[in-house]
Protein backbone atom coordinates (compact mmCIF):
# COMPACT_ATOMS: atom_id res chain seq x y z
CA UNK A 1 0.00 0.00 0.00
CA UNK A 2 1.18 3.51 -0.83
CA UNK A 3 2.48 4.94 2.51
CA UNK A 4 0.92 8.33 1.70
CA UNK A 5 -2.49 6.70 1.33
CA UNK A 6 -2.01 4.76 4.57
CA UNK A 7 -1.07 8.00 6.38
CA UNK A 8 -4.18 9.63 4.93
CA UNK A 9 -6.42 6.82 6.15
CA UNK A 10 -4.83 6.91 9.61
CA UNK A 11 -5.48 10.66 9.78
CA UNK A 12 -9.07 10.19 8.66
CA UNK A 13 -9.47 7.33 11.12
CA UNK A 14 -8.15 9.43 14.00
CA UNK A 15 -10.44 12.42 13.41
CA UNK A 16 -13.37 10.01 13.03
CA UNK A 17 -12.51 8.04 16.17
CA UNK A 18 -12.02 10.97 18.55
CA UNK A 19 -15.62 12.30 18.42
CA UNK A 20 -16.90 8.73 18.67
CA UNK A 21 -14.75 7.93 21.69
CA UNK A 22 -14.19 11.05 23.83
CA UNK A 23 -17.74 11.58 25.23
CA UNK A 24 -18.34 7.88 25.87
CA UNK A 25 -15.03 7.24 27.61
CA UNK A 26 -14.66 10.48 29.55
CA UNK A 27 -18.23 11.34 30.52
CA UNK A 28 -19.02 7.84 31.77
CA UNK A 29 -17.09 8.37 35.02
CA UNK A 30 -18.60 11.74 35.86
CA UNK A 31 -22.01 12.50 37.31
CA UNK A 32 -24.24 14.03 34.64
CA UNK A 33 -26.70 16.77 35.66
CA UNK A 34 -30.36 15.83 35.31
CA UNK A 35 -30.96 18.55 32.73
CA UNK A 36 -28.23 17.11 30.48
CA UNK A 37 -29.61 13.59 30.89
CA UNK A 38 -33.05 14.78 29.80
CA UNK A 39 -31.48 16.57 26.83
CA UNK A 40 -29.53 13.45 25.82
CA UNK A 41 -32.76 11.45 25.87
CA UNK A 42 -34.07 13.59 22.99
CA UNK A 43 -30.95 13.05 20.87
CA UNK A 44 -32.07 9.73 19.32
CA UNK A 45 -35.40 10.95 17.87
CA UNK A 46 -33.74 14.24 16.84
CA UNK A 47 -30.73 12.71 15.11
CA UNK A 48 -32.74 9.92 13.46
CA UNK A 49 -35.16 12.42 11.96
CA UNK A 50 -32.28 14.72 10.97
CA UNK A 51 -30.59 11.85 9.11
CA UNK A 52 -33.76 10.51 7.50
CA UNK A 53 -35.81 13.53 6.38
CA UNK A 54 -33.15 15.19 4.16
CA UNK A 55 -32.57 11.79 2.57
CA UNK A 56 -36.25 11.73 1.56
CA UNK A 57 -36.78 15.37 0.60
CA UNK A 58 -33.48 16.44 -0.94
CA UNK A 59 -31.47 15.25 -3.88
CA UNK A 60 -27.98 16.69 -4.28
CA UNK A 61 -28.88 19.49 -1.85
CA UNK A 62 -32.00 20.52 -3.83
CA UNK A 63 -35.64 20.03 -2.85
CA UNK A 64 -37.13 17.06 -4.63
CA UNK A 65 -40.92 17.17 -4.27
CA UNK A 66 -42.42 15.05 -7.02
CA UNK A 67 -44.13 11.74 -7.58
CA UNK A 68 -40.91 10.72 -9.30
CA UNK A 69 -39.20 10.77 -5.89
CA UNK A 70 -39.63 7.06 -5.09
CA UNK A 71 -37.93 7.44 -1.66
CA UNK A 72 -40.47 10.04 -0.54
CA UNK A 73 -43.52 8.23 -1.96
CA UNK A 74 -42.35 4.88 -0.49
CA UNK A 75 -41.53 6.41 2.90
CA UNK A 76 -45.14 7.28 3.76
CA UNK A 77 -46.57 3.72 3.52
CA UNK A 78 -43.33 2.40 5.08
CA UNK A 79 -43.98 4.74 8.00
CA UNK A 80 -47.50 3.33 8.38
CA UNK A 81 -46.16 -0.25 8.28
CA UNK A 82 -43.68 0.68 11.03
CA UNK A 83 -46.38 2.37 13.14
CA UNK A 84 -48.75 -0.57 12.76
CA UNK A 85 -46.41 -3.55 13.19
CA UNK A 86 -43.49 -1.99 15.11
CA UNK A 87 -41.26 -4.60 13.49
CA UNK A 88 -37.93 -3.62 11.99
CA UNK A 89 -37.17 -6.39 9.51
CA UNK A 90 -40.78 -6.34 8.26
CA UNK A 91 -40.60 -2.57 7.80
CA UNK A 92 -37.30 -2.75 5.90
CA UNK A 93 -38.66 -5.53 3.65
CA UNK A 94 -41.90 -3.59 3.02
CA UNK A 95 -39.91 -0.46 2.18
CA UNK A 96 -37.69 -2.30 -0.30
CA UNK A 97 -40.68 -3.93 -2.03
CA UNK A 98 -42.52 -0.59 -2.18
CA UNK A 99 -39.58 1.20 -3.73
CA UNK A 100 -39.18 -1.49 -6.39
CA UNK A 101 -42.91 -1.36 -7.24
CA UNK A 102 -42.89 2.44 -7.33
CA UNK A 103 -39.89 2.53 -9.64
CA UNK A 104 -41.83 0.26 -11.97
CA UNK A 105 -44.88 2.54 -11.88
CA UNK A 106 -43.47 6.07 -11.74
Amino acid at each position, binding site marked *: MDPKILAL*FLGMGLVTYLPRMLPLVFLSRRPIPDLVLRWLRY*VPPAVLAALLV*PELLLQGGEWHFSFGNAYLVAALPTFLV*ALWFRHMVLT*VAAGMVL*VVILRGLL
Partner: protein
Amino acid sequence: MDKVQLLAGARSALPIIMGYLPLGFAYGVLARSIGLTVLETVAMSVIVYAGSSQFIAVGLLAAQASPLTIIFTTFLVNLRHLLMSASLVPYLRGVSQPLLALIAYELTDESFAVATTYYQEHQASPYFQLGLNFTAQVAWVTSSLVGATVGNLIEEPARYGLDFALPAMFVALLVMQLKNKGAWLVAAVGGGLAAVIGASVPGNWHIMIATVVAATLGVVSEKWIPKS
Protein backbone atom coordinates in the same frame (compact mmCIF):
# COMPACT_ATOMS: atom_id res chain seq x y z
CA MET B 1 -17.74 -11.83 28.29
CA ASP B 2 -21.40 -12.54 27.77
CA LYS B 3 -22.10 -14.78 24.79
CA VAL B 4 -25.88 -14.42 24.95
CA GLN B 5 -25.63 -10.64 24.71
CA LEU B 6 -22.97 -10.80 21.99
CA LEU B 7 -25.23 -13.02 19.88
CA ALA B 8 -28.30 -10.88 20.56
CA GLY B 9 -26.31 -7.88 19.33
CA ALA B 10 -25.13 -9.74 16.24
CA ARG B 11 -28.74 -10.75 15.42
CA SER B 12 -29.97 -7.19 15.86
CA ALA B 13 -27.51 -6.11 13.16
CA LEU B 14 -29.56 -7.82 10.44
CA PRO B 15 -31.31 -4.68 9.11
CA ILE B 16 -27.96 -2.85 9.19
CA ILE B 17 -26.38 -5.64 7.14
CA MET B 18 -29.15 -5.36 4.56
CA GLY B 19 -28.45 -1.66 4.29
CA TYR B 20 -24.66 -1.85 4.34
CA LEU B 21 -24.26 -4.52 1.67
CA PRO B 22 -25.30 -2.40 -1.31
CA LEU B 23 -23.61 0.72 0.08
CA GLY B 24 -20.31 -0.98 0.89
CA PHE B 25 -20.45 -2.65 -2.48
CA ALA B 26 -20.98 0.69 -4.24
CA TYR B 27 -18.11 2.18 -2.24
CA GLY B 28 -15.84 -0.70 -3.31
CA VAL B 29 -16.67 -0.20 -6.97
CA LEU B 30 -16.20 3.55 -6.76
CA ALA B 31 -12.90 3.35 -4.88
CA ARG B 32 -11.44 0.96 -7.47
CA SER B 33 -12.66 3.16 -10.30
CA ILE B 34 -10.53 6.10 -9.10
CA GLY B 35 -7.43 3.93 -8.83
CA LEU B 36 -7.26 2.70 -5.24
CA THR B 37 -6.01 -0.89 -4.94
CA VAL B 38 -8.18 -3.63 -3.41
CA LEU B 39 -6.08 -3.50 -0.25
CA GLU B 40 -6.42 0.28 0.04
CA THR B 41 -10.16 0.13 -0.60
CA VAL B 42 -10.65 -2.41 2.18
CA ALA B 43 -8.16 -0.65 4.49
CA MET B 44 -10.27 2.51 4.47
CA SER B 45 -13.34 0.47 5.54
CA VAL B 46 -11.32 -1.09 8.36
CA ILE B 47 -9.51 2.04 9.58
CA VAL B 48 -12.06 4.81 9.01
CA TYR B 49 -15.37 2.89 8.90
CA ALA B 50 -17.72 5.77 8.20
CA GLY B 51 -19.88 5.35 5.11
CA SER B 52 -20.66 8.81 3.85
CA SER B 53 -17.20 10.18 4.57
CA GLN B 54 -15.60 7.28 2.66
CA PHE B 55 -17.62 8.20 -0.42
CA ILE B 56 -16.64 11.84 0.01
CA ALA B 57 -12.98 10.91 0.47
CA VAL B 58 -13.04 8.92 -2.77
CA GLY B 59 -14.55 11.92 -4.53
CA LEU B 60 -11.90 14.23 -3.08
CA LEU B 61 -9.06 11.83 -3.98
CA ALA B 62 -10.37 11.76 -7.54
CA ALA B 63 -10.35 15.57 -7.52
CA GLN B 64 -6.69 15.54 -6.35
CA ALA B 65 -7.58 17.28 -3.08
CA SER B 66 -4.78 17.63 -0.53
CA PRO B 67 -4.64 15.11 2.35
CA LEU B 68 -5.35 17.88 4.87
CA THR B 69 -8.51 18.86 2.99
CA ILE B 70 -9.67 15.25 2.99
CA ILE B 71 -8.92 14.78 6.69
CA PHE B 72 -10.62 18.02 7.68
CA THR B 73 -13.69 17.21 5.59
CA THR B 74 -13.84 13.75 7.17
CA PHE B 75 -13.68 15.38 10.60
CA LEU B 76 -16.60 17.70 9.82
CA VAL B 77 -18.71 14.95 8.29
CA ASN B 78 -18.18 12.63 11.27
CA LEU B 79 -18.39 15.19 14.08
CA ARG B 80 -22.07 14.32 14.56
CA HIS B 81 -21.00 11.09 16.31
CA LEU B 82 -20.04 13.29 19.28
CA LEU B 83 -23.74 13.63 20.11
CA MET B 84 -24.45 9.92 19.69
CA SER B 85 -21.45 8.96 21.82
CA ALA B 86 -22.64 11.32 24.58
CA SER B 87 -26.14 9.98 24.44
CA LEU B 88 -24.90 6.40 24.97
CA VAL B 89 -23.17 7.42 28.22
CA PRO B 90 -26.21 6.94 30.52
CA TYR B 91 -26.73 3.42 29.15
CA LEU B 92 -23.15 2.23 29.51
CA ARG B 93 -22.23 3.58 32.93
CA GLY B 94 -19.82 1.45 34.91
CA VAL B 95 -18.36 -0.22 31.84
CA SER B 96 -14.55 -0.23 31.83
CA GLN B 97 -12.85 2.50 29.81
CA PRO B 98 -10.91 0.16 27.48
CA LEU B 99 -14.16 -1.63 26.60
CA LEU B 100 -15.89 1.72 25.97
CA ALA B 101 -12.94 2.80 23.80
CA LEU B 102 -13.39 -0.38 21.76
CA ILE B 103 -17.16 0.07 21.44
CA ALA B 104 -16.65 3.67 20.31
CA TYR B 105 -14.45 2.58 17.40
CA GLU B 106 -17.42 1.03 15.59
CA LEU B 107 -20.07 3.55 16.57
CA THR B 108 -22.07 4.54 13.47
CA ASP B 109 -25.41 6.24 12.86
CA GLU B 110 -26.94 2.84 12.29
CA SER B 111 -25.45 0.96 15.25
CA PHE B 112 -26.33 3.90 17.50
CA ALA B 113 -29.92 3.93 16.26
CA VAL B 114 -30.44 0.19 16.67
CA ALA B 115 -28.78 0.12 20.12
CA THR B 116 -30.68 3.04 21.68
CA THR B 117 -33.96 1.65 20.40
CA TYR B 118 -33.09 -1.76 21.87
CA TYR B 119 -32.09 -0.25 25.21
CA GLN B 120 -35.52 1.29 25.63
CA GLU B 121 -36.97 -2.15 26.18
CA HIS B 122 -33.96 -4.23 27.26
CA GLN B 123 -31.15 -3.92 29.73
CA ALA B 124 -28.24 -2.12 28.08
CA SER B 125 -25.11 -4.23 27.68
CA PRO B 126 -21.61 -3.50 26.40
CA TYR B 127 -21.54 -7.01 24.90
CA PHE B 128 -24.79 -6.48 23.04
CA GLN B 129 -23.22 -3.28 21.70
CA LEU B 130 -19.99 -5.07 20.73
CA GLY B 131 -21.85 -7.87 18.94
CA LEU B 132 -23.97 -5.35 17.08
CA ASN B 133 -21.07 -3.06 16.17
CA PHE B 134 -18.70 -5.81 15.13
CA THR B 135 -21.25 -7.60 12.93
CA ALA B 136 -22.12 -4.35 11.22
CA GLN B 137 -18.47 -3.54 10.48
CA VAL B 138 -17.84 -7.06 9.18
CA ALA B 139 -20.74 -6.52 6.75
CA TRP B 140 -19.28 -3.16 5.70
CA VAL B 141 -15.74 -4.47 5.18
CA THR B 142 -16.94 -7.60 3.40
CA SER B 143 -19.18 -5.70 1.00
CA SER B 144 -16.34 -3.22 0.31
CA LEU B 145 -14.13 -6.16 -0.59
CA VAL B 146 -16.77 -7.74 -2.82
CA GLY B 147 -17.40 -4.41 -4.56
CA ALA B 148 -13.67 -3.85 -5.02
CA THR B 149 -13.04 -7.30 -6.51
CA VAL B 150 -16.10 -8.43 -8.48
CA GLY B 151 -18.03 -5.17 -8.55
CA ASN B 152 -18.38 -5.01 -12.29
CA LEU B 153 -19.97 -8.48 -12.44
CA ILE B 154 -23.03 -7.76 -10.31
CA GLU B 155 -26.16 -5.95 -11.38
CA GLU B 156 -27.33 -2.60 -10.04
CA PRO B 157 -28.52 -3.12 -6.41
CA ALA B 158 -31.20 -0.41 -6.82
CA ARG B 159 -33.14 -2.90 -8.95
CA TYR B 160 -33.89 -4.86 -5.80
CA GLY B 161 -34.70 -1.84 -3.64
CA LEU B 162 -31.56 -2.47 -1.56
CA ASP B 163 -30.65 1.20 -1.68
CA PHE B 164 -33.82 1.90 0.33
CA ALA B 165 -32.92 -0.58 3.11
CA LEU B 166 -31.20 2.03 5.30
CA PRO B 167 -33.84 4.77 4.89
CA ALA B 168 -36.52 2.16 5.67
CA MET B 169 -34.56 1.05 8.74
CA PHE B 170 -34.40 4.65 9.94
CA VAL B 171 -38.17 4.96 9.44
CA ALA B 172 -38.71 1.90 11.67
CA LEU B 173 -36.25 3.09 14.32
CA LEU B 174 -37.69 6.59 14.33
CA VAL B 175 -41.20 5.24 14.82
CA MET B 176 -40.00 3.20 17.80
CA GLN B 177 -38.63 6.41 19.35
CA LEU B 178 -41.99 8.21 19.03
CA LYS B 179 -43.32 7.29 22.45
CA ASN B 180 -44.71 10.61 23.61
CA LYS B 181 -45.66 14.06 22.31
CA GLY B 182 -42.24 15.43 23.15
CA ALA B 183 -40.52 12.86 20.93
CA TRP B 184 -42.93 13.59 18.05
CA LEU B 185 -42.21 17.30 18.38
CA VAL B 186 -38.44 16.72 18.51
CA ALA B 187 -38.53 14.43 15.46
CA ALA B 188 -40.69 16.82 13.44
CA VAL B 189 -38.49 19.81 14.23
CA GLY B 190 -35.23 17.85 13.84
CA GLY B 191 -36.24 16.40 10.48
CA GLY B 192 -37.75 19.60 9.09
CA LEU B 193 -34.87 21.77 10.21
CA ALA B 194 -32.26 19.33 8.87
CA ALA B 195 -33.93 19.40 5.44
CA VAL B 196 -34.22 23.21 5.39
CA ILE B 197 -30.59 23.69 6.47
CA GLY B 198 -29.42 20.89 4.18
CA ALA B 199 -31.05 22.64 1.24
CA SER B 200 -29.55 26.04 2.03
CA VAL B 201 -26.19 25.56 3.77
CA PRO B 202 -23.41 23.66 2.01
CA GLY B 203 -21.56 20.97 3.92
CA ASN B 204 -22.69 18.55 6.59
CA TRP B 205 -23.70 20.84 9.43
CA HIS B 206 -27.43 20.32 9.06
CA ILE B 207 -27.52 17.07 11.06
CA MET B 208 -25.74 18.47 14.11
CA ILE B 209 -27.48 21.84 14.13
CA ALA B 210 -30.92 20.29 13.72
CA THR B 211 -30.21 17.68 16.41
CA VAL B 212 -29.01 20.23 18.96
CA VAL B 213 -31.90 22.63 18.32
CA ALA B 214 -34.55 19.88 18.34
CA ALA B 215 -33.26 18.15 21.49
CA THR B 216 -33.10 21.50 23.28
CA LEU B 217 -36.65 22.25 22.20
CA GLY B 218 -37.63 18.83 23.58
CA VAL B 219 -36.31 19.74 27.03
CA VAL B 220 -37.97 23.18 26.91
CA SER B 221 -41.25 21.63 25.77
CA GLU B 222 -41.44 19.50 28.91
CA LYS B 223 -42.66 22.68 30.61
CA TRP B 224 -45.85 22.82 28.55
CA ILE B 225 -46.34 19.24 27.33
CA PRO B 226 -47.29 16.94 30.20
CA LYS B 227 -45.15 13.79 30.15
CA SER B 228 -47.14 10.79 29.06
